[in-house]
């Protein structure tokens, strides 16, 4: 009854809001294990009222690496640029245990750099199970390391895509468990594609912030459970592992360095 009273009497109403926009630079890119071309995307944020994006096409990008002995070298500084996307002209070989980072210099001299991130070992998907309620990815979580995972489920029916979802978790609840698992409610289909990306902390933090924002503000799903966001923390900036070296501040974006494993199971 109290809840009813509160629900009836609490209310949400739309209001006009003033805006004080200041453009920022958003950088993101991914390096996964194996031989791949690496792409880094650079854009300048725009006011929420603007529909046109503002890609940056005149920056210089350099990809660095460091081997386990500590020797640093440039992996690539040759990129093709297309609408704010910087792609290495050659493929790059990423090796487990080596560290990688990028440096971006804008035309005005502002310098950005990602943290040196180590490429962590692959976490193979041991098994995918499905019953009437849940689809579960089972894997072996290393005990000696604190791990952060980005998991991707894609469901197919007769090879036709029907649904996919991305999930994020740390290993607090299953650290060192040889049959660690993560599951989601079943959505049907006859085959499942599942991947595990073994993230570094700062990349995980970026995804955590972006997932929270997507759930609460973009997908708007939080409105059902916490209409006033009474119990949500202050909105998080989409910071990851990029720093503005010129100003010594955190910058928007991340350069993810992670291993990638996947499995497809037909049921």
């Amino acid at each position, binding site marked *: 009854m109290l809840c009813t009273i509160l629900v009836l009497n609490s209310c949400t109403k*739309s209001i006009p809001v003033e805006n*004080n926009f200041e453009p920022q630079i*958003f950088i993101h890119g991914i390096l996964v294990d194996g031989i791949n071309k690496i792409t880094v995307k650079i854009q300048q944020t725009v006011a929420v009222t603007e529909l046109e994006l503002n890609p940056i096409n005149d920056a210089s990008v350099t990809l660095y690496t460091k081997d386990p002995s500590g020797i640093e070298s440039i992996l690539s500084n040759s990129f093709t640029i297309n609408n704010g996307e910087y792609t290495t002209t050659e493929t790059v070989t990423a090796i487990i245990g080596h560290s990688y980072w990028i440096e971006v210099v804008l035309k005005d001299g502002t310098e950005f750099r990602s943290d040196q991130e180590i490429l962590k070992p692959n976490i193979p998907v041991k098994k995918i199970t499905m019953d009437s*309620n849940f689809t579960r990815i089972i894997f072996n979580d290393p005990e000696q390391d*604190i791990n952060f995972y980005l998991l991707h489920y894609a469901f197919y029916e007769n090879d036709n895509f029907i649904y996919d979802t991305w999930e994020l978790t740390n290993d607090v609840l299953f650290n060192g468990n040889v049959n660690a698992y993560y599951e989601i409610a079943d959505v049907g289909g006859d085959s499942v594609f599942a991947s595990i990306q073994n993230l570094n902390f700062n990349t995980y933090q970026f995804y955590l912030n972006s997932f929270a924002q997507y759930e609460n503000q973009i997908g708007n799903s939080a409105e059902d459970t916490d209409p006033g966001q009474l119990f949500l*923390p202050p909105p*998080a900036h989409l910071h990851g592992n990029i720093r503005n070296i010129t100003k010594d501040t955190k910058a928007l974006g991340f350069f993810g360095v992670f291993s990638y494993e996947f499995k497809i199971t037909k049921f």
Partner: protein
Amino acid sequence: MKIKQFATAVWLKKCSKKNILLMKLSLSLFLLGCFQLVALTGFSQNKVTLELKNTALAAIIQQIENQTSYQFIYNNDEIDSNEKLNITVFNEDIKNTLNKLFLNSGILYILKKNHIILSNKEEKQQKFTLRGSIKDAATGETLLGANIIIQNINKGAVTNEYGFYSITLTEGNYIVHYSYIGYASKEVPLELKENKTFNIELTPSTNKLDEVVLTSDTRSKSQVATILSGVITLKTKEIKQLPSFLGEPDITRAILTQPGVTSTGEGTSGFNVRGGNIDQNLVLLDEAPLYNSSHLWGLFSVFNADAIKDLKLYKGGIPARYGGKGSSVLDIRQKEGNSKEFKGEGGLGLLFSRLTLEGPLKKEKLSFLMSGRRSYFDLFFPLGSAEIKDNKLYFYDLNTKLSWDINENNKLYASGYFGADVMKLSFKDEELDENGNPPPEEIIDFRWNNATATVRWNHIFSNKLFMNVSAIYSLYNYALNSKNDTGGGPVNTSGSFNWKSSVENWIFKPDFTFYADPSTKMRFGLNATLFKFTPAKIVTAGEGFNNVNFDPENAIEAAPYIEIEKKWDRFSFNAGLRYSWFANIGEGNVALYSADFPRTVSTITGSNSYKKGEIIKSYSRFEPRFSMKYDLNDRKAFKLGYNRMFQYVHLISNTSAALPFDVWKPSGTYVKPLEVNQISMGYAYDTPDKAYNLSLEAYYKTFDNIVEYKNGADLFVTENIETQLLNAKGYAYGAEIALYKNRGKLTGNINYTYSVSERKTQSAFASENINNGNYYPSNFDRPHLLNLVTNYKLGKKWELGLFFTYQTGRPATKPTGRLIFDGNPYLTYSTRNSYRLSDVHRMDLSFTYKLTGNPDSKWQGSWNFGVYNIYGRKNAFSQFSTFENNVLKTAQFSVIGAPIPFITYNFKF
């Protein structure tokens, strides 16, 4: 002839004993010569007419000498000619005049011819102590802060929080005046020839004494007599007169009507005092600390007003006996239980009921109090749909107390509190699945509770030394059980899990009060606390998941303290020093981090293990406290104070409203003690008839080592929680003005506060600072705060209560820009708290109707009804934005956005 400067102290020091003897002999011969001389002169006029109040002795002497042929002789080293005395005589002879003048004064006189020789009585007279307790004549409850005034000599005492007083005076006859707000005063003649005990009972002012009540100081809020600034005292009666939310008198809401006290929003847990976080309030219930003072996520406080005697909020001058929190002390005392007769009271509301029973188990020796309260909106659930019929949502409280008056020197109290919130939600779809099987039942069982137990022993060692020893246990815990896939746990799992977390305190507190003389009181003692924090214990049933058992954190705090309170004629002070030693102790593991990088789980380089009882990290700090008061006269006082407080336990919470499962963390290797320094000053003024009291106060506070949170901090089941925290500093300043009207049909107060509260993070790594290391407003920064509290007596049966508040909207962070990531739009935000929500205002109205039943019956009933938020103001609690289809929509949320009527039947028997 007068000898006004007979010798100086310096000169005396230079004299040898022989010289002094010669001087005394010379003086005697000189005086003798004077007497012989004046003996030759005759009387002329010996009648005196005087009416002088609070006048210096020298001035009175001058007048008597002018009206008579007498002349005074006294030694200035012995007699203080500036001592203030009262005299009212009409055509009185000199002897009666002098008797009246020097009654209770400590001055002896001798009439020799037409000379009056004065000497100090104290040198000849012994001192004795008057002690005792002051109680309510109707219930036997001790009265805390009652006044004991020795008439004519302007000396007095105040009962301590245990109802005890002691005052030492020279032998003589006195009139002792006992008074307490809301009670008829009493004057008792005292012939002090030996140590005496006066246990006094004062009679409450009743409705039958309406005429008296209306002209007495039953509601006085005068701050003139109190040395400490920024102290608010509220009695249960006042709290019950406020219009209440759903008819339930609420202590937290009553505190929020006071100047300098704000909250992040309506219906949130806790309150913020002068720029302090909610965890900076030391909330004591019968001396036991409470770690969560609210029910239903913050809508109601855990205190049942029927079980409470009174409360005191210290927000400025905080005595040294209190410590462990940075910004305020809310000291709540439970009733002791009626020691004279069996009594009951309670209330029946739409959503809650409460019942209090109290009475003597042995008359005036052993009494009990039991007070319970329960919400029962869940009792209607079975009437609802299948979806909710098995749900439970309620809270309850139980307050108990046993008071044993063992003998004149020993009293024993045992009190306890237990309160809990229960939320059990069952989700069961009525439809069968495609295979015809019933769907799995999903159950969330979430409950949190407070439990405290206090055993207190009052012992009077002597007339001057009083002791209270308290042994206290306090527990706050919460548990979440889930048997489903959407249990609100950290991850989705089909396995059941049981999550528990708790804070436990064991406290030992000996406290001594020494009444050195009528103007000097000393208080000293020790606070020793053993803490145990269990951050998270999760037991899961599913394969593939581990049980989680984060190391419990143990800590110990020992804090000896001493306070001295000294009063002179106009000047008085309360000075204190507290030394707090705090240690975080094993067993446990502490992660080590690379010094070259911000602290994250990725920069852990190892860990140190500590054995059970081994000190992991200790801190020791001195906490000076000083308050002084200068009385401009008996109606005006100026106050100044300085406080330093250290806080060693911290609530880890970065949500708009605190949650029941927020974690408490002790200071340790990475979380430093919070240091708060406050300078405050005040001016208290009473109108000549004392019908109005005015209080003006200003303060400036600094905060060091505030716990703040990194951008996007994840505090949910996080083992290395220090990786989510930032160290911050801050400041707050403000001015508060409050005007109280305490006589007449219309009573109440209006108060206004202007305040600023800001902070900034101080990471060594600039890139992780919030707002690039610049200051930003705290979440509860509300520069303008205006409250109006009124009570109007419409007649013998009807009373009207009205409350109005206006507050600046709280700060907020808003989206300002957008970007595209993985094909989806995302938002960028302003700097932290750079915008504000719209201003807040609300008016509540209540009526109380007292039923007149059988006058011979003990039953007294009254109806309390009214409307909360009478004009339905939709005050913004939060503002949130969504971005869909390339359009930003911003909405604001109001917790209570409509008028809420209420009705409650209250009774006493």
